[in-house]
């Protein structure tokens, strides 16, 4: 058995195109996941019971079922109910961001709860509403604290996004399968795919480490 470097090299452009798609799904899902997670995370500690319960159900359901099953639910099961054909791209983004939102919600909840109660009291005693205090005082401080766990979540999501290959969506993993179907180069292609994933996750973790360092040295800004 020999490693065919020529094949690996020739396949790179196609695989990299898949990697671009993976980055796109991940970036979009991360952005939406942060928005979802922020609201769900705040809802988890709401003083209104029903909101708290709904948020807990959301988090439990999405963390308690496999992402793969969630993808199937959205791509195959949902159209049965709605009668509308699901675009693979929409289904991929939706399942990844809804799933990630649940993990991000827990990250934000912990981050918000780690902020000293005196901050909320100071904000409220100045006449600011709960929402204003959350927005200007609590969340900006919590954001800094959650950068490391958020970074881990993004890395996890980038890897998990390979699951959307099952609905035929041509991200990196799916591209790999397609190239192999033509070239039979299992060894070369899967090694290349793994290395591309590795390069992307290392880049993210370096970036997160940089953000963390920057936050420590210039501990400011809101």
């Amino acid at each position, binding site marked *: 058995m020999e490693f065919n470097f020529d094949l690996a090299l020739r396949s790179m452009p196609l695989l990299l195109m898949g990697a671009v798609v993976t980055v796109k799904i991940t970036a979009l899902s991360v952005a939406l996941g942060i928005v979802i997670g922020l609201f769900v995370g705040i809802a988890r500690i709401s003083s209104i019971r029903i909101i708290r319960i709904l948020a807990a159900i959301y988090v439990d359901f999405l963390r308690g079922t496999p992402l793969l099953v969630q993808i199937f639910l959205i791509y195959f099961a949902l159209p049965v109910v709605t009668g509308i054909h699901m675009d693979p791209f929409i289904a991929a983004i939706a399942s990844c961001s809804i799933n990630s939102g649940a993990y991000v919600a827990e990250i934000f909840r912990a981050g918000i709860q780690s902020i000293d109660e005196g*901050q909320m009291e100071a904000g409220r005693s*100045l006449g600011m509403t709960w929402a204003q205090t959350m927005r200007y005082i609590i969340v900006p401080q919590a954001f800094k604290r959650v950068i490391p766990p958020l970074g881990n979540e993004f890395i996890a999501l980038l890897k998990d996004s390979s699951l959307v290959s099952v609905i035929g969506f041509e991200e990196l993993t799916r591209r790999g399968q397609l190239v192999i179907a033509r070239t039979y180069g299992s060894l070369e292609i899967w090694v290349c795919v793994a290395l591309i994933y590795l390069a992307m996750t290392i880049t993210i973790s370096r970036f997160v480490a940089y953000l963390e360092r920057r936050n420590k040295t210039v501990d400011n800004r809101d």
Partner: protein
Amino acid sequence: MIIEIKGLKKAFGDNEVLHGVDLSVKEKEVVVIIGPSGSGKSTLLRCINYLEKPTGGSVTVDGINLDSDANINKVREEVGMVFQRFNLFPHMTVLKNITLAPMKVKHIAQDEAEEMARKLLERVGLKDKIDAYPEQLSGGQQQRVAIARALAMKPKIMLFDEPTSALDPEMVKEVLNVMKALAEGGMTMVVVTHEMGFAREVGDRVLFVDDGMIVEQGTPDDVFNHPKESRTKTFLSQIL
């Protein structure tokens, strides 16, 4: 009466910590609250701006009865509070700490709010710290910024909850001086403190609180030099 408290009760679960407190505070009056740890001093103070929600009785501030959400925010605009642990916003400069609430709550323009912040910082002697972050300041400086921050809302009443007890001894004075100047300027103040010197010099009235009740009250001279209740005598003998 700018503060009118009647039959105020507060319980945490089954534990009632205020058992029906009556207290009226006149405009420009400086009321000092003393009492042992756990007696309910902070709770009483925090009921005045509804940081704690009373479980019985009524609290009226400047004619506003504290019962609905809207009233509560209105009262909080008029009642400044200074905490033992400063509670400055660590992610904002001194300037932003002071201007945030006036801009967000009262919708004051930024340059106007900043102008006011400069004046307030001058008043508390921290003009040169305007761009500093809280962690770059000493405890005494942080507490003076906290006072300036509260004053920026132009409150009619200021509440102080042991404002100097987290400070190193050498910084106590600078904070008390700011508070004294505030009192001399005619601010209505309710101050929980163990600084007896301040209570004597600045206080119009001293309340001794024990076990969730006002046990004794009067002028500083009455309470400190001629206490009537045995509990007051015991407490004073321990701290003086």
